[in-house]
């Protein structure tokens, strides 16, 4: 493994850690709201990853101004894509939470094992 490169790409490492944390919450936590929070953490890790890809060392914001060369600006495409991604994440979270409200009204619990009637860790 290229440890120098890993130490330099610290943002990518953080996004890997966040992704695994979110995946752990989705896979293990029985509470549906915690699963949704895990999903959001995973989404955040992807946003961090993609925005970090577009970064330029000591770069400028991609706004055309006097005296700023285009070569020093950060890549605008990941930021535009992530803006779309954030809105989609908010939309899916809203729908998931409203389904949770209905599930809680119907079953009286948000515990996935109790709803499935298994009593297992899921």
């Amino acid at each position, binding site marked *: 493994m290229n440890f120098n490169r890993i130490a330099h790409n610290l943002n990518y490492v953080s996004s890997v850690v966040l992704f695994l944390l979110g995946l752990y919450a989705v896979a293990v936590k029985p509470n549906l709201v915690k699963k949704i929070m895990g999903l959001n953490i995973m989404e955040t890790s992807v946003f961090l990853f993609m925005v970090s890809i577009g970064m330029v060392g000591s770069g400028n914001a991609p706004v*055309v101004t006097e005296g700023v060369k285009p070569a020093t600006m950060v890549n605008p495409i990941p930021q535009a894509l992530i803006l779309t991604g954030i809105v989609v994440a908010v939309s899916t979270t*809203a729908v998931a939470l409203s389904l949770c409200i209905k599930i809680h009204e119907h079953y009286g619990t948000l515990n996935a094992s109790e709803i499935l009637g298994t009593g297992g860790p899921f």
Partner: protein
Amino acid sequence: MRKAIVVLALVGIGVMLIYAVGEMPPMGDSGNPDKVHIAPRYLEHGEEEAGASNVITAVILNYRGYDTMGEVAVIFCALCAVVAILNREKPGLSRTSMDVSGVKASVVVRTTIRFLVPVIIFFAVYIILHGESTPGGGFQGGAIIGASIILFTLAFGLPESTRKLPLRFRIPLESFAVIAFLAAGFTGIVFGVHFLTYLMPGLSEYAAETIRHIMMMVIEIGIGFAGGIIFTSIMFAMIREDQCELQPDSP
């Protein structure tokens, strides 16, 4: 046992991902693959081709306009789904716990929020209107508008909020972004160019650029206000506390 298997699998995935990070190009290098393909063209010609000095706004509204139109449709569909699942808020039935407790938020909180909310909305309007030339834009401003209204609702309760923002005022605004986008798109077709083309042919350069500026501004304002109102409506629809519904009205 199952938890141990999950942790083991996650460690495996993590090691593979970290190994892949080690193979990736160094972060922040201006020669990375993502910066040599199409980004230089956007950065150099974005202002003249797309009509916005903020290149992100140029990408969102012009180069990837279809994408953004789909995104606006997605957030509108999310509102439709939430309303279909939960129904609209019912004044008198769905209440925050604050309304039911009968104890008003303290004077400090109410005064601060009464002072802050107009300032926050003013800032959001600035962000929406300056999205073309400074960092900002419709979605960001919409999120700030939604946050300010959520702040107001947390302190003053749902009845006060729905009196300030009644349903008949919110329903037309919710679909404003989609309508603004479709209107701008079909204007291009009427003028004989492609869908979502902002530069109209057969006009002088000055007139064409002015019309493009106005159209992008209308779309930004539509996205901003519709986004904020959609967030607000989703939050209003979600406020319901079953235990609280059984209790009598607050004194």
